């Protein structure tokens, strides 16, 4: 993805819902070529069973791309002991007046949050579904149109229902 013109904005949100023995790989390169461009990349994976999610993302800031503002974050939620996530965000910066950040986290569902919901009478699977929904909801919220966002939310809910 090449931000070739000055002041261009790119916003990339990706979500993966994986189960069984699925393998899903996302490879992302954001190339800031012109000055004053901005990019945001958020990758979220929910990985169940023996599935594997892979994210390799790179932000490149070319010498002429001063005042670049770029951030990349990859988060994975592992729902089983056999699930695997490989996340590799990278920064490659050749300009000296930029703001760039990147990060990655991988973890399981928060037991305390789950306990909080279950203590209020919510069954375990439903409590998990609520937490997963909150995790994935952040990337779906990036979709501008209400009708598309609702349809995508339904896709997520269907996946959660199948899981149960």
């Amino acid at each position, binding site marked *: 993805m090449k931000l*070739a*013109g000055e002041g*261009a904005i790119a916003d990339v949100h*990706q*979500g993966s819902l994986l189960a069984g023995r*699925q393998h899903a790989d996302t490879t992302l390169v954001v190339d800031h070529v012109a000055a004053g461009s901005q990019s945001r990349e958020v990758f979220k994976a929910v990985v169940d069973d023996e599935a594997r999610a892979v994210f390799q993302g790179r932000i490149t800031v070319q010498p002429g791309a001063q005042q670049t503002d770029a951030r990349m974050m990859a988060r994975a939620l592992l729902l089983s002991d056999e699930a695997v996530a490989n996340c590799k965000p990278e920064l490659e910066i050749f300009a000296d007046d930029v703001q760039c950040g990147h990060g990655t986290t991988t973890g399981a569902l928060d037991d305390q949050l789950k306990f909080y919901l279950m203590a209020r009478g919510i069954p375990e699977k439903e409590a998990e579904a609520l937490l997963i929904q909150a995790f994935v909801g952040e*990337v779906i919220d990036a979709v*501008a149109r209400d009708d598309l966002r609702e349809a995508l939310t339904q896709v997520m809910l269907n996946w959660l229902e199948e899981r149960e």
Partner: protein
Amino acid sequence: MPPLAPRSDAAARSVAREAGAVFAGLGLRRLLIVDGAFAPELSDLAGLEPGVVVRATVEALGADEMVLPLDMAGGDPVAALNTALAADGVVITVAPGVVVERPIHLVFVTTGGTPAATFTRSRLELGSGAVLTLVETHEGPDQSDYQINAALQVDVGDRARLDHVKITGEGAAALHISTLEASTGAGASYRDFGFTIGGAVVRNQLL
């Protein structure tokens, strides 16, 4: 010039009509790519907004246009394989300043149980100041270990705005590899959302 990809038969057409159901009822303009070939007879091409042109990739190739540049994605092997084998796809152009209210939905569907490898190449050009929402869905049967290699080149002009939503919802045994190559002009805005839920092995490249 005759199309390079095979025409879809009656059974395939009936499967294709049901595809992309995730966004049914939202009034999106559906353009169907069935087993790798653009199917205008199944697509909603009536009342295209002035300044919007939709063509099959084979048609653009027939007009000697460079829709399949050899150096797509800097010589990436997956994109190179796509360049070598792409049979069809869709080429969409939106004239400068045109604001397209109705989103375009590219419905990529694989029909039938015979495993096959399908290569599509599509292209979207947004003129300066143009605005478009492009939705893409990919799906196919669970029982077949078919393979998809889909490439899309996007050129977002100066101050243009593109919202792109893609769902990779292939069948349970399918292999799906896609390459998106995007370039934005000055002051342009490009928002991309991707959801991977289906397919046995999936690789989405955004380069």
